[in-house]
């Protein structure tokens, strides 16, 4: 219906007023139905592929997306299709790409026509848990209402189950369990947090773990992957590394990893931010700067002793 109306407008068979009128009458506030072509598939998987590393994550998500799509297509032609529960748990340290992956996943599901809006709503304990009895359920339902048609991303989800039995976090979990079952086709809830704490969280309600069929581990990045993240940031910001700078960056990253800091994207970004500032300071004493000088980050711009990010 929507497609015919828009084609009619394009071909001069309808005016914009008439087109809008027909869409309103048809309750046009619905997604544009479209058939997924191989080109579309490539397009939405491209963003996922662009993420550095995360090979297992990508593999699981691709399998999952294919499964969801096939079930949807089976349903469309009247075959039996399994009920799809799309909720997930992302387990990993901060900066390992959980939020970015969730955002891309929302877009993928939108383009596949499985979610109406495909937006990502990031939330945490403070937005779900209330201050008095009965307040929590209201707050949780409100957040879920806002996320309908998209992805609800609950960061540090384990904090909901960390208090004692009087803590309202448990009420939020119980409300969510009910809602995630009732609205499972309209919303994807992603619970994210550190692996160990999340194990405890998933045990906090007997029905919770079984309603989250997909649990994905986000490993810390390796040195090679961190260097690759650095290279894409540098490309984006129009900087280049000299060979000495590259070596120094590698050493700085190694030093951080040896100290027990988790290798994550934010660590790279902060080391580079420091380097950008150091380069600016170094250049500020010279005049007549060449393009090459403005582009290059040298070894002396990276300092090992600094801890740019509290990891």
């Amino acid at each position, binding site marked *: 219906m929507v497609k015919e109306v828009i084609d009619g407008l394009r071909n001069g*068979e309808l005016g914009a007023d008439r087109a*809008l009128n027909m869409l*309103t009458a048809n309750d046009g506030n619905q997604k544009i139905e479209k058939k997924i072509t191989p080109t579309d598939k490539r397009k939405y998987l491209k963003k996922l592929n662009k993420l550095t590393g995360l090979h297992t994550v990508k593999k699981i998500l691709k399998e999952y997306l294919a499964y969801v799509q096939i079930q949807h297509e089976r349903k469309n032609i009247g075959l039996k299709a399994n009920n799809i529960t799309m909720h997930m748990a992302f387990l990993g340290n901060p900066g390992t790409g959980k939020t970015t992956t969730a955002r891309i996943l929302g877009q993928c599901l939108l383009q596949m026509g499985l979610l109406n809006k495909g937006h990502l709503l990031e939330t945490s304990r403070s937005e779900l848990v209330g201050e008095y009895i009965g307040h929590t359920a209201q707050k949780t339902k409100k957040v879920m209402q806002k996320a309908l048609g998209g992805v609800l991303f609950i960061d540090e989800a384990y904090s909901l189950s960390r208090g004692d039995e009087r803590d309202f976090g448990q009420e939020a979990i119980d409300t969510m369990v009910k809602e995630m079952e009732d609205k499972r086709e309209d919303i994807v809830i992603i619970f994210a947090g550190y692996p160990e704490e999340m194990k405890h969280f998933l045990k906090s309600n007997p029905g919770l773990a079984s309603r989250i069929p997909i649990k994905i581990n986000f490993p810390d990045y390796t040195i090679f992957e961190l260097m690759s993240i650095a290279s894409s940031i540098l490309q984006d910001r129009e900087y280049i590394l000299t060979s000495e700078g590259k070596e120094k960056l590698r050493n700085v990253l190694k030093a951080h990893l040896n100290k027990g800091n988790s290798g994550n994207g934010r660590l790279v970004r902060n080391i580079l931010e420091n380097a950008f500032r150091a380069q600016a300071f170094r250049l500020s004493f010279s005049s007549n700067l060449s393009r090459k000088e403005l582009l290059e980050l040298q070894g002396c711009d990276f300092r090992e002793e600094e801890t740019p990010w509290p990891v």
Partner: protein
Amino acid sequence: MACIIVGRPNSGKTSFLINFAAYLGLNSLKISVRRPQGYLANQTMTIARARSNLITCHSHTTRNLQSIKIVLPKGKRGKEIEIIDTCGLAEGIHPDREVRMGMAQTIEKILLCKMALHILDLSAIEKTTSTIDNELYQYLKNSVGYALLANKIDKEDALAKITHVRNTFSSVPVFPISALYSRGFKEVYRFVLAYY
């Protein structure tokens, strides 16, 4: 996250986009233009250049979706939103194919966007509001992120029409603005910020 600006031709959509971006502190605009063939063309220009190049007194100057991205101060890292300017929607069948393509693009985008700012030209309202404005209202009124921006309050008699507009479009928020002189933007900004 995208916010679409819709309305009749010459209602002030592009003026609003540019001056709202300036109000939010942008000095230059990186404008992405979505051609009906599907590809994106990017161009960067200063606010002053954008005003002189993109705003005219002729109808249908904007024929493709053109958007800018801004970061709202929200959350830990801020929220990036895309504000999309569109081809104006006119009543009846337009003789120019390119304009029809632009209008089709606009309607397609309305179906996908969560937030819509509908610009209403107060100077064009006489006794009744236009069919297009009514149809847009009927279509969008149930969306949470929908607001009417009653534009051109700088013109004579415009303020007197605000009550009429509020009565006609009673179920949505109405913000009186002057897109040309950047008036009333504070309320619009608050609305956008609250929604995201």
